[in-house]
């Protein structure tokens, strides 16, 4: 049987793995995907945008240093929890350094950083959704365009695989396989974040 899509190995290292091994591109993607989440947490703690940007950067500089020591396989450790721990500490440092307390954004903003909360000020589902959105952008860059199209039409736009197979003149299995391959990568990335 002839394969219509370009073969590519499915065992991609995850972003986290790539960044851990000092891969520049992995690092850039990591920042792109996770940076805004951290920024949002800090904002929700009541910090102003300029402060949040600083704290976010400081968080990632610390992440860069500590990443090789972060062990994903350790039980109970999630990247999200770890990221939040670092961000919260950086925010505290910042609040101590600034004698002025950050201006409160709106009535709901609480001083989260002062709480001993091990969870970031966000819903997990929200974070995951947000990361998924940006992760898809990143994955798209490293996925063969045809594979991506098959994935996108079926998994995101909700078209029938059979229809897409007909349009692109490939077998249904090819479409399913493309879709499944990207989904599998996406799942793996998201598992790194919160499983």
């Amino acid at each position, binding site marked *: 049987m002839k394969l219509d899509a370009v073969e590519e190995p*499915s065992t991609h290292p995850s972003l986290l793995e790539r960044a851990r091994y000092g891969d520049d591109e992995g690092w850039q993607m990591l920042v792109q995907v996770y940076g805004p989440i951290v920024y949002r947490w800090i904002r929700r703690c009541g910090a102003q945008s300029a402060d949040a940007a600083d704290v976010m950067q400081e968080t990632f500089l610390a992440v860069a*240093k500590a990443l090789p020591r972060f062990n994903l396989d350790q039980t109970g450790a999630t990247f999200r929890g770890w990221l939040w721990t670092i961000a919260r500490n950086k925010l505290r440092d910042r609040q101590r350094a600034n004698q002025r307390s950050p201006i*409160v954004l709106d009535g*709901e903003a609480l001083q989260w950083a002062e709480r001993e909360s091990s969870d970031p000020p966000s819903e997990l589902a929200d974070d995951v959704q947000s990361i998924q959105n940006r992760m898809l952008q990143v994955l798209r860059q490293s996925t063969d365009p045809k594979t991506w199209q098959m994935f996108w039409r079926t998994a995101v736009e909700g078209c*029938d695989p059979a229809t897409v197979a007909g349009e692109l003149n490939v077998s249904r299995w090819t479409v399913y396989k493309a879709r499944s391959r990207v989904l599998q990568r996406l799942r793996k990335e998201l598992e790194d974040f919160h499983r």
Partner: protein
Amino acid sequence: MIATSTDCLSIEELNRLLDGQLSSNEFDSASKHVDQCEQCQSRIPEKWDALSPIANADSEEDSVLAESACQFAVAQLMTANVPVPHAAADLPIDQIGPYEILGQLGQGGMGMVCLARHNRLKRQCAIKLLPPHRVMEPGWLDRFDREMTTVASLEHPGIVRATDAGTHSGWHYLVMEYLDGMDVGKIAHRLGSLPVADACEIARQSAVALMHVHETGLIHRDVKPSNLMLTRDGTVKLLDLGLVLAGDDPLATDDRLTTVGHLMGTLPAMSPEQLLDSRKVQPASDIYSLGATLYRLISGRWPHANEGGLAARVLAITGESNRSTPLPLSSFQPSVETELESFVGQMMHRQPDQRPSGSIVAERLATWSGEANLKALLKRAESTPASDAPITPSLPLATNPASPPPGNGKHTWTAWMGPLGWFAAAVLLATVVIQIKTDKGLVTVTTDGKDTKVAVEEDDGEPRSVALAQSVAEQSEPVVADPTNGIVYHGKNLDAWLGILQNEQQIDSVGQAMRAAERLSRNSPRRAEVAKLTLARASEHGTILVERPPNQHSDVFNVTGPSDPRFMGYLTEVYPHFLPTPGLEPLGEYLAHGNERSKSATILLLNQYVTGQYVSGMDANTDYLKQRETAPTYFAKSAERQEDRAKVERLLIRLGTASEELRKLSSQVSDETWNAAKEASASREMAWATALRILQDSGPHIAAPDWIADYVEEQVNDAVAKYERREVDPATGQTKWDYSDPNAVYGFSMGGFGGGPQAHTNPNPPDWILPTELYLAATEMRREGRVQFPIEFAAETLAHPRFNWYSMDGSSFNDVVQGLATIDPEAPSLIAFHLDRSFQEMDRQYQASQNAEWLRPLTFLRQRLQEGLASVYTTHVEQPKQAHDRLERLVKSLPNLSMYQQSTDDNKDFWHAMLNDLKQRSESGAAPE
């Protein structure tokens, strides 16, 4: 179990495969099977209902994520050269030129040293690699090339031999003979101290090699244990000749101290003359270092190691006092003969001309090295496991300067190394500053890649050096100032820095010059001139966008962001030091006469001063900044004296001039992203707020200039005009709420999920919404009859979810509502009406979509409701019964909101009270008041 490629998949396995739920390996083997198995393929359903939930990915992306600060920070981090330490030492390449790279031998300050083998000759060799990104950085290639030529010119059994050099796909490499053995730094680290005879033999052989170096007219400049290699046959070889220089080279530069880590490893072996001024380095400096090395090998610790921290040691090495004489060797090692002890002392004599030459050292040391057995020593070292902790806790042998030392955090020195940052140590930037606060003043060790300086200032200290201060404070030795060079900072004097400040094009150099000039001009009559020159460059780079510059002492990473915000980062860090005197005067001049860029920058600086705000957080806490007069004190004091009053009045007028001259530019505002017009507009608003703040600080003696009211009038008229042009919903006759995607502008939106446009649940802020301060001023002025605006405009603003309300000093929401009610008694009803519209809208959208995000505006309104709008609403809303039921539904659903906080009882009580009021009114059947 997952099928192997020969077995067909079960239906469950097939489903998991199709849904992407298998692990990578399982996926590979399962899909390989299906690729070839028509039967499995035929079992794949036409249509599959269990399609993944990714199709539902239409939830709102928070507008917070679209904020430019966030985007900017992410972009910065992405382009920043952030070194992620490798979890595993992966070799970057496996073949360079004709050499096959076999493994890593070590990581030096400059690059990596690898074990390699020549393809054809099969000969093992060591290759020093300079990575391509280093080649681009100034200084690295020079140093690399220098090592190449030097090593090639030195043929001596005691000096490592170079055999080849070249470049390969951007990498520069230097091939040297492979030395099987261990460097003496490692040996000393493992064994602690060495037998006297062995130590003397190592030093003797090194002295012979140094003789050869010196005879060739060169100086090694970096003699220390880790640069001596003990090979298996018992020979000692000099390593790392990258710093070797001709003694008469007038441009002799010391680019060794490029990292903090390297400085740490090198400093204790450095001679006083080298520490004070690297240009004074001479062959005798190598002898000093060799003496210090010998001392270290015999005693197990560096001379002066008892002096405490690094700074104290610097003071001790350079100090004139007798107290800084190292402890006698015999106090560590009783077997050391008095003669040897005094000879080592002679090698480390403070005066270079009093030290013995290399040949004398070699000759004399032979007396004590007769029983040496270096082969046995190497074997012993190899069989001793490397200990985790440094043998001399107060100073490790930095054989591996770019990485954290072992025993992290256990020792006092790591405690202060921490804030300095190994991060910085790993990054090359030709500036190393170690500052230590002592009770006598601030000791600064600096190098700009050319000169190394130890300077003492009677001035402030930096917070990050506080930890160090303790270890130094214990010793009460007098502080020694740089005897020859006067006041210098990073090796240059004030005039040199001012030259850079005025002419340099590269932003970081300008920033560094700003910092340096500011420091050097403290307590100097030239301070006003320096302040003015610092501000002058704002005419090219001034903006109100500020990017924090790299920290003064650490966190140095190469950011390639836009240069203007970066310039402002430096300016907003440095200029506050000049305020209020003498810095306020130049600020005023640039406000009046500067170009648009200067005006924006000066308005920002003045605003930060009057609000007590600094952009660069850490540096704001220096003693120097704390000592200066704060804006409230300064302006209050100025208001008391006639001539000072005139100054403040002139400053206020000039703020008005600046604002007026920015007006034309600001009127060109379009809806696009940030541009000069928006910046001008924001600057004007800031100028206005700054003036108000100055007036407030100055008290009643200073009258507000006319432009302040004119500005409010202009802004109100502008907002009202926009309000009157706003889009109105034809069905209701009311303002149409805009939910279009604000993220789209930033190209960050993920639109397209689920086929439709994303839902945005917060109405966008309309262009007619005034900032809080202006709104408050406008209502005041309306009561005085100075401005006009329709009451609908005021009411709708106040009740709009996106009105950015915050409590200002002395103003309460009740006052505002009261004020509006005196202008027009209908105001409370109008406010209630618009609040009701918001509630209805939320209710309708939520009922229709069951998406609780639609309730978020309620959280935006809560503070205003709590501060008084709640009673306006409950008293004036038209249909209290419906209002009650609706609000009850909304409040009950609030916990479904993502990011909803498990609210305090306070919160619940508030909503409860509001509902209660509505209920009472509906039950009493009262008409709105």
